[in-house]
């Protein structure tokens, strides 16, 4: 117990962001409801939740665009609840929507953003040039931002958020709504920034993205943080479990319940009429399973082992069905 407390004190010491009981209401809507979490120095921290969960509202409060109704925020040891300006020089913010100046060129936009953080002219121009090159926007450097495509706009918005090399970077759904190639490029960039020591606070509703990139994750649902832990710890309970999907045709509708009666140590779930999901904390032996299904008059067309991932953990913890998140994903256009 004492060890635990010592550990949490040590953690607190290297916590760059400490959020305590933060609440924000918009009239009748409680957007953020008493959330608490910490982000450590150099960490890539994921904030994972469905639409309307309160992710953007949380970022806005941490960065000074929204005023909390109650709770406390400390960033780098500074009290920021009432005085959000205190830590703003340490922050970089990449908003969910591009909000650069349409009438300025890409290059001028970057230089202007750098000047807001007090960077000298020579340095600004050099960094802007480098970033435009890194993001493959060299050719468009002197075109107006208004004439950029959606993906180009997103890239320039990211460049604008990191031009002053912030110690803490907030990214609000950086890969939503852009094509697969650009999204991959952005994920690589996030990983690079992380390696270079930037503390990153990333919101997303792509579970795979969070699993692949982040070290620790908070699940946020309807304004509440329902769990915060490292990816390893979150995955731990499912690590020993096995899962497979069996595709069948001509199956009776009660096949699942018959399977459950026959194999009590396995869990069955009908994903659809043709697909049955099997999960177990013990080894799943395929042959008896297939024999039983065929004896029931159905035909097995495919049986495939699947890896259990953070998705299952998320569903288990939040009770939000994967379908709901998947639908969002399709709407906003492609994950990985």
């Amino acid at each position, binding site marked *: 117990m004492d060890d635990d407390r010592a550990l949490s004190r040590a953690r607190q010491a290297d916590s760059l962001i400490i959020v305590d009981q933060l609440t924000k209401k*918009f009239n009748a809507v409680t957007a953020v409801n008493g959330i608490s979490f910490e982000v450590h120095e150099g960490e890539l921290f994921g904030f994972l939740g469905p639409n309307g969960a309160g992710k953007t509202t949380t970022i*806005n409060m941490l*960065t*000074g*665009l*929204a*005023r909390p109704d109650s709770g406390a925020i400390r960033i780098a040891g500074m009290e920021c609840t009432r005085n959000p*300006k205190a830590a*703003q*020089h340490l*922050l970089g*913010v990449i*908003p969910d*929507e591009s*909000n*650069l*100046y*349409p*009438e*300025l060129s890409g290059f*001028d936009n970057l230089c*202007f*953003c750098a*000047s*807001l*953080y*007090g*960077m*000298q002219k020579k340095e600004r121009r050099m960094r802007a040039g480098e970033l435009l090159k890194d993001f493959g926007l060299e050719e468009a450097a002197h075109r107006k931002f208004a004439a950029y495509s959606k993906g180009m706009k997103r890239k320039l918005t990211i460049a*604008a958020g990191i031009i002053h090399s912030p110690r803490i970077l907030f990214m609000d759904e950086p890969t939503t709504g852009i094509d697969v190639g650009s999204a991959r490029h952005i994920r690589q960039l996030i990983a690079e920034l992380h390696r270079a020591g930037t503390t990153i606070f990333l919101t997303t509703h792509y579970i795979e993205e969070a699993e692949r990139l982040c070290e620790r994750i908070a699940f946020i649902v309807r304004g509440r943080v329902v769990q915060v832990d490292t990816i390893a710890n979150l995955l731990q309970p499912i690590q020993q479990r096995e899962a497979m999907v069996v595709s069948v045709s001509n199956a009776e509708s009660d096949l699942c319940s018959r399977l459950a009666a026959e194999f009590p140590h396995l869990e069955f779930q009908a994903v659809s009429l043709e697909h049955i999901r099997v999960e177990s904390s013990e080894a799943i032996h395929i042959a008896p399973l297939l024999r039983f299904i065929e004896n029931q008059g159905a035909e097995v067309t495919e049986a495939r082992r699947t890896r259990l991932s953070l998705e299952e953990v998320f569903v288990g913890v939040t009770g939000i069905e994967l379908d709901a998140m998947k639908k969002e994903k399709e709407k906003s256009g492609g994950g990985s």
Partner: protein
Amino acid sequence: MKRWIAFWNIMLKDMRAYYLKPPNISWGLMFPVAWTGMFFIKSGRGMDSILILLPGVIAISVLFGTTSMLAVTVTFEKKNRSFERLLLAPIPLGLLMLAKTSGAILFGVANAFVPIVLALFLTDLSQIAWITVIPAIVLIAIVSTFLGLFIAVSVSEVFEAQTFSNFFRFPMIFLCGLFFPIESLPALLHPLSYLLPLTYGADILHGAVNGKSSMPLGLDFCVIAGFCVVLFAISLRNIHRKWIV
């Protein structure tokens, strides 16, 4: 130091992006010319009336030049969310808003010189007390810019900003003694006149150009300066309350 780099660049960016654009420059030129021409023809009194009209035309040019700009630099940027960048920057809100308005103030001062240069070609301006006119122009530019700011932070759409500012601007042409003395207005309107900052600016200009001011110049200057402080403070408070939600 870092803050001043930000201040300077915010001002420069607004000038490059908005004020020095051809449509704005031609608007800045056309507007005073049109007003001068209109009043000149209307009064039909020949060249010597120019000095009588000049203070009013200067004040109007500044008022319209500055207030229209704030609808763009503030309301429009709020609408397309680029204003959030400024709110996220490590600059105190007061300094930020000074940077956002200083471009408009300079634009207003420049506008004032259009009718002055025109008049220079048409008549003799040697009787004008420039030492009073210049600071008066600067103060009028500041107070009308802050009036524009006050309007810009009270509305959320660009067109609302235009409508709302016309609601202030057009009555001011008549109520502030720009072209005819306040005394010639119905007595009922007098209190209204004295509630408008431009009344005091116009009074200084009349005094400096024609030697006919109705109040002590010192008082005029103090009242305008007071309006500047109050309008700016209210605007800051509104931004704080309404934009940082």
